[in-house]
């Protein structure tokens, strides 16, 4: 039957994208808070403690797999939607569309791909070292065991100008992505209100700025510090 729950309708896909996206966005604030600890003048004590907590807390460890699944489904669904959308207009217009729309809403797949590539790089540098797939470039002793020293590893990477540029550009793309994504997520969930929707749009932009600027100042800080 065409309208059964099993049929994955366009709106179901959009609602799924929204729920997963908003969940991923909320995680960004946690990650940003931990990353900002890199700049604390305590020799990495706070950052290592936070990284240790994230790596050993049973709830967080389970949550980690939920997070990976959310990333995976959000990315795959995004690609499926993009492919479906391309098929919906097989012949392009000779004169490109000039309708007034939010600029970044048209480039979600492009900013999404940049974020995905950065995510892969991030995995190679940190997660693969955490699970022992690659050797950690720095280690430290904690409770009698050798642990990857994510503090030293992060600073070593962020001090490299090329990596810093890639890092900042990736978070710029993430900012552009979030600027449209947050308010779009609310719209897809049907959470639209004549009074609150303009506020949600402003919050969307503020959130995107906090994430993009918050992450980007870290490499700038270490580059200036030398």
């Amino acid at each position, binding site marked *: 039957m065409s309208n059964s729950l099993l049929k994955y309708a366009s709106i179901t896909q*959009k609602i799924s994208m929204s729920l997963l996206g908003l969940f991923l966005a909320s995680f960004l604030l946690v990650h940003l808070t931990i990353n900002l600890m890199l700049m604390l003048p305590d020799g990495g004590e706070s950052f290592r403690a936070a990284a240790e907590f994230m790596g050993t807390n049973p709830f967080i460890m389970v949550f980690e797999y939920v997070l990976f699944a959310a990333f995976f489904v959000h990315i795959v669904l995004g690609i499926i939607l993009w492919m479906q959308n391309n098929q*919906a207009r097989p012949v392009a217009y000779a004169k490109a569309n000039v309708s007034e729309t939010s600029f970044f809403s048209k480039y979600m797949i492009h900013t999404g791909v940049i974020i995905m590539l950065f995510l892969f790089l991030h995995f190679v540098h940190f997660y693969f070292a955490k699970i022992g797939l690659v050797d950690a470039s720095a280690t430290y002793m904690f409770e009698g065991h050798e642990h990857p020293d994510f503090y030293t590893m992060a600073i070593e990477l962020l001090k490299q100008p090329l990596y810093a540029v890639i890092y900042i550009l990736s978070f710029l793309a993430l900012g552009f992505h979030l600027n449209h994504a947050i308010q779009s997520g609310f719209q897809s969930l049907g959470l*639209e209100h004549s009074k609150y929707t303009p506020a949600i749009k402003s919050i969307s932009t503020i959130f995107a700025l906090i994430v993009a600027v918050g992450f980007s100042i870290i490499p700038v800080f270490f580059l200036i510090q030398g």
Partner: protein
Amino acid sequence: MDLTLKIWRQANTKAKGKMVDYKVTGVSPDSSFFEMLDVLNQSIIEEGGDPVAFDHDCREGICGTCSLYINGRPHGPDSGITTCQLHMRKFKSGDTIYIEPWRAKAFPIIKDLIVNRGAYDEIIQAGGYISVNTGGVPDANAIPIPKVDSDTAMDAASCIGCGACVATCKNASAMLFVAAKVSQFAHLPQGKIEAKRRVQNMVATMDELGFGNCSNTYACEQECPKEISVSHIAKMNREFFAAKLCADVKDI
């Protein structure tokens, strides 16, 4: 006004089309866009050629028949109007004007600038109606409806089904059209009886016909000649979500 027109010419659905250049001279700025095309067609006919086929009917902006994509915008450079309400004073002498048909997999070209919008009819057939028993006409005030609901339903019902939302959407999505039709009934007590079945069937049909997904770019709202709000899309999303989660077995 002297103009260069670049018009999509395509003999039939299966034929290969192309943009063809035409020159029109002495066009009055007070003439309508269609009158300018009428003049062009007259000259083509006099030269023994095949006139440019384009859709038009009422020429009063209410029937939703006209469907030209002009210089990158459905219904041309003005907002809140259909192509038939567009006047040549919106252009300058010497301009080059691109005139194309709506582009969407679900709207195949019949000839030149005419597309088959039968897909919209199929969506309406899937649920864009209310079932009413025959009999005596009920009293107009027998069913109380809040003013705000009747106004919102009327706003949604002003959709003329022209297809500009699909034409301008980067994904060729029909969400604004379907949302307007779902929302106009969902706001009224008469529409609530079949609401859950309606939204699921209409969305399913929209998907089956090959329209794209909504990316919330809101270009549809910008180009809708009746200025229908995207808040109706949010309303449809709510209706759909509720129907999927809470519908009785007989509703799905």
